[in-house]
């Protein structure tokens, strides 16, 4: 599709729409704008398999800045957009100062559902697995969560834990070696 070289990733059309970089004052338009930004960022995360955004470092690079148009987001506006993504379940802030945003191109709940479905189908209920088994193990190599970041995985498992469908054992210093046990959806521990 892209006119550019194959390796170069081109952002969606709206990245080139100049007023996108000015937060709109009219509420209805601002809603639409935040939605466009969410789509833009999700697209960007998926293409680059990114699961965290370092606000102060990335504000000066695409998609938050368009040097060709001479447009960029203000720090406060970028945070406003990421807040909106958090509200919609695409991630959350690592710190109160809002410097690092952990996120992904799918909602945490969507990841959680897909992991739990896999566990049920593969007969993993009741067994203990490591986080490494989930994101890089052979048994899960055909899944859409294969290769996702351990930190993101931990957040997804937190969601399952909240639903009473899993228990995470955070033993040791290595996140990859943390254990997780899935439960039958009906029997809460």
């Amino acid at each position, binding site marked *: 599709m892209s006119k550019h070289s194959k390796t170069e990733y081109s952002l969606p059309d*709206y990245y*080139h729409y100049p007023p996108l970089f*000015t937060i709109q*004052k*009219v509420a209805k*338009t601002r*809603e*639409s704008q935040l939605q466009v930004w969410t789509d833009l960022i999700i697209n960007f995360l998926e293409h680059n398999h990114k699961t965290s955004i370092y606000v102060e470092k990335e504000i000066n690079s695409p998609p938050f800045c368009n040097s060709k*148009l*001479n447009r960029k987001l203000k720090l406060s506006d970028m945070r406003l957009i990421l807040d909106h993504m958090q509200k919609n379940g695409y991630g959350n802030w690592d710190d109160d100062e809002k410097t690092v945003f952990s996120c992904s191109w799918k909602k945490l709940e969507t990841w959680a559902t897909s992991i739990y479905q896999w566990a049920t189908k593969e007969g993993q209920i009741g067994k203990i697995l490591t986080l490494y088994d989930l994101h890089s193990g052979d048994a899960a190599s055909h899944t859409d969560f294969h290769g996702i970041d351990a930190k993101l995985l931990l957040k997804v498992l937190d969601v399952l834990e909240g639903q009473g469908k899993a228990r995470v054992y955070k033993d040791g210093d290595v996140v990859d070696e943390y254990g997780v046990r899935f439960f039958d959806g009906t029997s809460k521990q």
Partner: protein
Amino acid sequence: MSVEPVRRKAGKKAFGKLKGYILQQASAKETGAQIQEAKIAEMRQSLSTFKEKLEEFARKHKKEINKDPAFRAQFNDMCLKIGVDPLASNKGFWADILGVGDFYYELSVQIVTVCLQTRNVNGGLIDIYELSHKVQEKRSKQSSAVSLDDIKQAISKVKSLGNGFGLITVGDKTMVKSVPVELNRDHSAILGVCSNTACTTVPDIKKNLGWPEHRIKEVLELMLQEGMVWTDDQNDQGKETLYWIPSLWNANASQDSS
């Protein structure tokens, strides 16, 4: 010989001439009426023959009519000339043999869908080319191609529902409006100023239209509230706030120009 008979003779002759002339005129008139009547009858006949032929033609070329936009436009044109509107309803003979009613019904639904989906961003105003492009994307590969003429036809059908659908002309562009906002002359004038650049500033409008500032701001504010205009505080050519019309903006043009 007296003069009398001569004069009488002459008078008789003149009268005869006049009578002949009157008779001739009357008969011509009568013949004229007759001819006209015959002509009308003939036209009626040929019209009904034409209608029959048109039906026959439609039956025979059903596939082409439904597939080929140019063919369809010509066919519609022919129908309109003899007072048949194959699109007026999806019931009856024309729809039965052609399914044209269905064609436009389906197209109208697709048009309304695209308008609703893009309304968030463009405030309910969209360039007819962009609309057509998006409708085309929506249609499956098997379905027939759609021309601008088809889009206009379908919109004229949707328009009758009275929900704000309509066509407006902005500069050399045709835009489709899908919101029940009454676009007055002032709105159109501002859209006209931006028809090529998709953006403008207050001084720019002032220069082009000669309006006082309060009138400009009032109209812009209304268009902002409707979502037809977005503001841009990062004007790199000056200090003035830029006002963008998303429905006039085109991604390719903006990438090429910078």
